[in-house]
């Protein structure tokens, strides 16, 4: 941010009158550039006489003086060419702006006139016309940020994305100022994806600048890009002085917007309001703009506007919706601010649903369609809110942007807080004369729903409006009015209006339980209706009073889901209490008690009783118990025909996959250390047996000794020793054979296990994963140098380049240091059996004492297996100590080293960023530092002995067993199954296909149980056969007599046709289909050689999987 130091300050004690110095040609000509600027600065800030404005304008006519201000610079290359003057008094700054804009009134008037046409053209989708107007404006008044932003906008709306990008790039290239280049790039990003980039780029930029203490510039970004109150809190902006950086057109746009906000701000000091009012008065003297804010409009808020606005409102109130829309469309250009009437039109459109309106181009009709869907409660309001928010961001620089933002508040007054909309409504009212009665009401302290008044005579209003008005106006008990309205529910064209009226009445009448019941019943039918209820008030009441009914569970569920996810604790607790007061600990115990045809009960079981809510109950023994509960619930709902069978099937499939994935995750999370002892025993038994025979045959004829070398260690053992003698060397060979196979066998040894399962991949991947997610690591390029960290460089592009370079340097250092730490830890995870100094933790040395013990063991062992087992036990003892050491090293040494590395990084970045906040980066580093600790703990748990070794490759036999287990876990009951699949032990399936095979097989089992007529008691027989490269598995189940008789050959053909038909898996999901179709498709995804056939053999149904 180079420019924030560009203030010009006058000399404190100028001996001559600054104005005279500059005004007098004789003295002015003798002033150096520096002294002239000093004089100008002294005059601008320190001239106290009342004729300041006149004097200023006099000087401004002089080229030399004029060129000290940015107002005249209307080409990109010259933006912010001149510095800004430091002016200490707010009133004086506004006086200066008043003078500057008055001096440029001619071009501003030209601009204002054209802007109205341009904005109308954009709103109505006449984009070629809009572009032509824009170029005309540029031709007459030059370039400005306003021009650049709008050209990018129109090109984006036209879909000319390449042209848009080229234009933006050419502007950036021409710009000589970093801040202006940044603004242009923001305009481009916002046009591309308003919501995303507003959050990622703009709000982050604002936050960074705020934290760096450069509030003037952060407020400038707010003023240009951030709609308030929608995306930011509304506070007085401090960017007034730096608006000098812009030219006259941009100054005009920014100052009028700022003035409206300040004038609408009640808490602002009277002096400030008065200064801004004076400023606007100055502008009004020379600039003709109906959008200039006027307090008179606010003061006359109850006076209705011209006849056209009255007409639109009246047409709406008297239900002449067709005419209302026709007048709005046909007289669009005559309406002072069309955005002020979009709610009326949208509501009319929601009622009569005219097709032509949705087909009309232009942002305003898209907006009307979105608002219509809010009134109809037909689309989740959050989605519509996002859609409208995107338009709000996109058109924030339009003169009607306050009305645009207000349209959202008008459509959902119960969704937002009054404090949010009052100032916005005032600001909107300051800049537009014509608006609806609701817009005016929102600008007051009155409740918009209970204080609403119609402008039409009551006798002309439709019945539902009269009834709703009566309910609002009812004094004391309004039950009669409520009953009257309820009786005419079907006469209210929009249900949202009904709910809003009744919920407002219940709130006013303090009838919380009636409100809760209506709310729960309504939400269970249509969750989008939450915007028609005062949800926050209701949930606060539920929390304070600990209301734990079915209704309260439903309401809190939707509140957490739609409004505030941080209240999930309340959902959990209300849910738990609800079952508690019903004397149950699990939802399924209430399945028979509650009527699942009641929408609320259905929501309770189908939606609320998810894994995430149920697991809080603490009444399930493990994940599979929880899953079985869920399957019990959805089975019941399917049987009761209240959920779609396909929805049921899809969820069960998903649960099966979870079980499979979870099994994999379990393997990943727990003990990984494995040596296949039995395989090793088989491999070396022949050699070991002959060596043991040799050992036993050697007589004590020759000298046997252990030759000690080197100094003795404190415990009396030699540090090194060699054996001599035939028996000793034979024993050593035996020990080496066993130890080498234990440690180094390529298939089953420890080193292979450490290497394949931990060192090469799992460890470094897991350690790096959180860092990579946070983009804190950079890669090494072909030359071995660390690449720049593009992510954080881009995310902080607003920061000065020298600071960024230094930060990048630190991130590279961190990447290198972290990789060194990983390498160091990986070195610990190696095996060492040599008598050398090493950092390796798995070190195996046989000392002289051990050797003596082995001698004895070899003597007493009768078989080689016996000796092998002794030795392996000793090796595992050593390995257990090594693993303990490894866990300790990871949990303490490694964790501390990683911690210190992060601390060092934080310290280095703190130095490098020179006071800039870099909030995102710092948060990422701190968060990752915490997250990685959990991963280190996970890794330390790997260093435990795994007695159930599982490779990624699985045999068909194993997979059939796993599938049965999965099925039983998911279903929560034991299968009656008889199986003979041993012959398929040698047939292996790649790890990548394991899941597909299990899903297929579970579906076959599911099909068998569902269609046998015996349900859980179905008797299943699984048989297999292997012939060369081909094999098959037959799954047979018994059939009830009814099922048996219905399964004729025609039905079997239908099943086969459906299973193998050309429909894709997705088509089947949509249109229904048996589990066999899924099984067939899953197996085909593994290999085209798979086939599935079904047949009825006697009274059995058989599914035959064949391969080859």
């Amino acid at each position, binding site marked *: 941010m180079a420019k924030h130091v560009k203030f010009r300050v006058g000399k404190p004690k100028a001996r001559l009158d600054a104005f005279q110095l500059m005004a007098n040609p004789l003295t002015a000509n003798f002033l150096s550039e520096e002294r002239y600027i000093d004089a100008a600065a002294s005059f601008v800030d320190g001239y106290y006489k009342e004729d300041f404005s006149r004097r200023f304008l006099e000087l401004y006519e002089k080229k030399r003086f004029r060129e000290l201000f940015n107002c005249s610079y209307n080409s990109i290359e010259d933006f912010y060419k001149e510095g800004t003057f430091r002016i200490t008094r707010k009133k004086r700054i506004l006086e200066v702006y008043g003078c500057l804009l008055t001096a440029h009134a001619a071009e501003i008037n030209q601009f204002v006139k054209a802007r109205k046409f341009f904005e109308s053209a954009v709103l109505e989708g006449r984009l070629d016309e809009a572009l032509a107007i824009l170029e005309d404006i540029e031709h007459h008044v030059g370039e400005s940020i306003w021009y650049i932003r709008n050209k990018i906008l129109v090109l984006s709306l036209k879909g000319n994305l390449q042209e848009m990008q080229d234009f933006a790039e050419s502007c950036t290239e021409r710009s000589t100022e970093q801040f202006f280049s940044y603004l242009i790039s923001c305009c481009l990003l916002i046009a591309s994806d308003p919501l995303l980039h507003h959050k990622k780029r703009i709000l982050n930029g604002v936050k960074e600048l705020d934290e760096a203490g450069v509030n003037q510039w952060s407020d400038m970004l707010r003023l240009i890009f951030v709609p308030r109150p929608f995306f930011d809190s509304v506070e007085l902006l401090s960017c007034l002085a730096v608006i000098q950086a812009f030219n006259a057109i941009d100054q005009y746009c920014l100052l009028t917007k700022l003035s409206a906000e300040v004038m609408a701000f009640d808490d602002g000091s009277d002096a400030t309001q008065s200064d801004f009012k004076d400023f606007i008065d100055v502008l009004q003297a020379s600039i003709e703009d109906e959008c200039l804010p006027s307090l008179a409009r606010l003061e006359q808020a109850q006076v209705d506007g011209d006849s056209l606005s009255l007409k639109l409102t009246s047409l709406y109130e008297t239900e002449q919706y067709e005419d209302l829309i026709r007048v709005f469309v046909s007289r669009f250009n005559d309406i002072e601010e069309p955005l002020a009437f979009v709610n009326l039109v949208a509501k009319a459109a929601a009622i009569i649903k005219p097709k032509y309106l949705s087909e009309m181009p232009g942002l305003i009709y898209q907006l009307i369609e979105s608002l219509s869907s809010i009134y109809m409660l037909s689309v989740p309001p959050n989605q519509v809110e996002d859609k409208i928010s995107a338009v709000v961001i996109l058109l924030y620089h339009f003169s009607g942007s306050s009305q645009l933002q207000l349209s959202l508040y008008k459509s959902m007054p119960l969704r937002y807080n009054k404090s949010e909309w009052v100032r916005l409504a005032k600001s909107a009212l300051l800049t537009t004369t014509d608006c609806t009665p609701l817009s005016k009401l929102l600008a007051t302290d009155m409740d918009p729903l209970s204080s609403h008044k119609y402008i039409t005579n009551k006798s002309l209003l439709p019945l539902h409006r009269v009834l709703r008005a009566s309910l609002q106006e009812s004094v004391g008990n309004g039950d009669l009015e409520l009953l009257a309205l309820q009786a005419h529910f079907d006469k209210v064209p929009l249900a949202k209006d009904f709910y809003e009226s009744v919920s407002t009445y219940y709130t006013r009448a303090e009838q919380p339980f009636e409100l809760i019941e209506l709310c729960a019943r309504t939400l269970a039918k249509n969750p989008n209706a939450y915007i028609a209820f005062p949800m926050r008030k209701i949930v606060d009441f539920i929390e304070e009073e600990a209301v734990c009914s079915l209704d309260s569970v439903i309401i809190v569920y939707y509140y957490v889901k739609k409004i505030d996810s941080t209240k999930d604790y309340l959902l959990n607790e209300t849910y738990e209490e609800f079952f508690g007061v019903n004397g149950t600990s699990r939802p399924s115990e209430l399945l028979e008690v509650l009527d699942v045809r009641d929408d609320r009960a259905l929501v309770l079981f189908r939606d609320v009783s998810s894994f995430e809510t149920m697991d809080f109950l603490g009444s399930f023994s493990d994940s599979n118990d929880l899953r079985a509960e869920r399957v019990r619930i959805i089975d019941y709902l399917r049987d009761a025909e209240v959920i779609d069978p396909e929805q049921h099937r899809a969820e069960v499939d998903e649960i099966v996959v979870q079980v499979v994935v*979870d099994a994999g995750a379990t393997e990943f999370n727990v003990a990984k250390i494995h040596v296949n002892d039995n395989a090793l025993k088989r491999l070396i038994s022949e050699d070991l047996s002959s060596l043991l025979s040799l050992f036993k045959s050697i007589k004590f004829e020759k000298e046997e000794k252990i030759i000690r070398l080197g100094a003795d260690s404190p415990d009396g053992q030699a540090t090194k020793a060699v054996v001599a003698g035939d028996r000793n060397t034979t024993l050593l060979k035996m020990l080496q054979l066993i130890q080498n196979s234990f440690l180094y066998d390529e298939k089953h040894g420890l080193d292979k296990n450490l290497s394949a399962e931990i060192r090469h991949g799992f460890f470094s991947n897991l350690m790096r994963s959180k860092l990579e997610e946070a983009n804190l690591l950079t890669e090494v390029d072909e030359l071995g140098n660390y690449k720049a960290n593009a992510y954080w460089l881009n995310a902080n592009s607003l920061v000065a380049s020298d600071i960024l370079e230094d930060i990048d340097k630190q991130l590279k250092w961190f990447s290198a240091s972290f990789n060194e730490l990983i390498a160091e830890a990986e070195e610990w995870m190696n095996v060492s059996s040599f008598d050398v100094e090493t950092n390796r933790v798995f070190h195996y040395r046989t000392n002289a004492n051990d050797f003596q013990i082995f001698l004895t063991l070899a003597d007493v062992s009768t078989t080689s297996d016996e000796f092998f087992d002794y030795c392996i036990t000793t090796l595992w003892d050593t390995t257990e100590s090594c693993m303990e050491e490894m866990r300790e090293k990871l949990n303490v040494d490694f964790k501390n080293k990683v911690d210190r590395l992060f601390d060092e990084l934080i310290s280095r970045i703190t130095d490098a960023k020179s006071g800039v906040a870099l909030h995102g980066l710092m948060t990422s580093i701190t*968060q990752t530092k915490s997250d990685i600790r959990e991963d280190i703990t996970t890794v330390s*748990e790997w260093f435990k002995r795994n007695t159930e070794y599982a490779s990624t490759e699985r045999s068909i036999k194993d997979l059939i067993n796993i599938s049965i287990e999965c099925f039983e876990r998911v279903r929560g009951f034991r299968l009656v199954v008889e199986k003979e699949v041993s012959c398929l032990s040698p047939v292996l399936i790649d790890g990548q296909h394991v899941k597909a095979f299990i899903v297929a097989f579970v579906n076959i089992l599911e099909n068998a149980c569902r269609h046998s007529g015996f349900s859980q008691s179905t008797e299943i027989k699984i048989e297999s056969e292997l012939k060369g490269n081909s094999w098959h598995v037959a799954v047979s189940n018994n059939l009830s007599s009814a099922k048996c008789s219905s399964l004729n050959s025609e039905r079997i053909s239908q099943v086969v046709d459906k299973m193998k038909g050309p429909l894709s898996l997705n088509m089947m999901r949509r249109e229904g289909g048996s589990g066999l179709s899924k099984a067939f498709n899953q197996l085909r995804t593994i290999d085209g050689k798979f086939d599935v056939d079904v047949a009825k053999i006697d009274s059995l149904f058989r599914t035959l999987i064949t391969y080859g």
Partner: protein
Amino acid sequence: MAKNILIVEDNNHKREKIIGFIKDNFPLWSVSEAHSFTAGCQRVLENVYDVILLDMSLPTYDKSATESGGRFRTFGGREIARKVTRRKIESKILFITQFESFSERGHSQTLESIDKELLVECGAAYLGLIYYDSSKSIWKEKISLALGSLANESFDN
């Protein structure tokens, strides 16, 4: 005086260190353990403890060869504490965590801010939130302080 304490902690290494420390310094105390949110919930509802020492983040279920632990609950310990408070169980509650900050749903919280919230939620039962760092001994001093005051208080009584 002998007290009974429940330690709900899923990290074996950390749990062993804490239990070892408590056994060394409060030899009369009876120490029970739970390794997950669910196990912790079940223990506190079935038994009476003078002190419940909770890790802040916990898996839902005990991890085993066939159980990956279910959903990881960033504030699992806090959820247990809320259950204890709601059920008016009169155990003192002490938290211990090795995280310096917690992040859930994109919002991060510091230890200081959580400490304040826990004090409000647990009221008089709250003994504090201790930061566990295996390389330092400060956590031991803090546990000593928290449990020691409780033990002394009982002696006096």
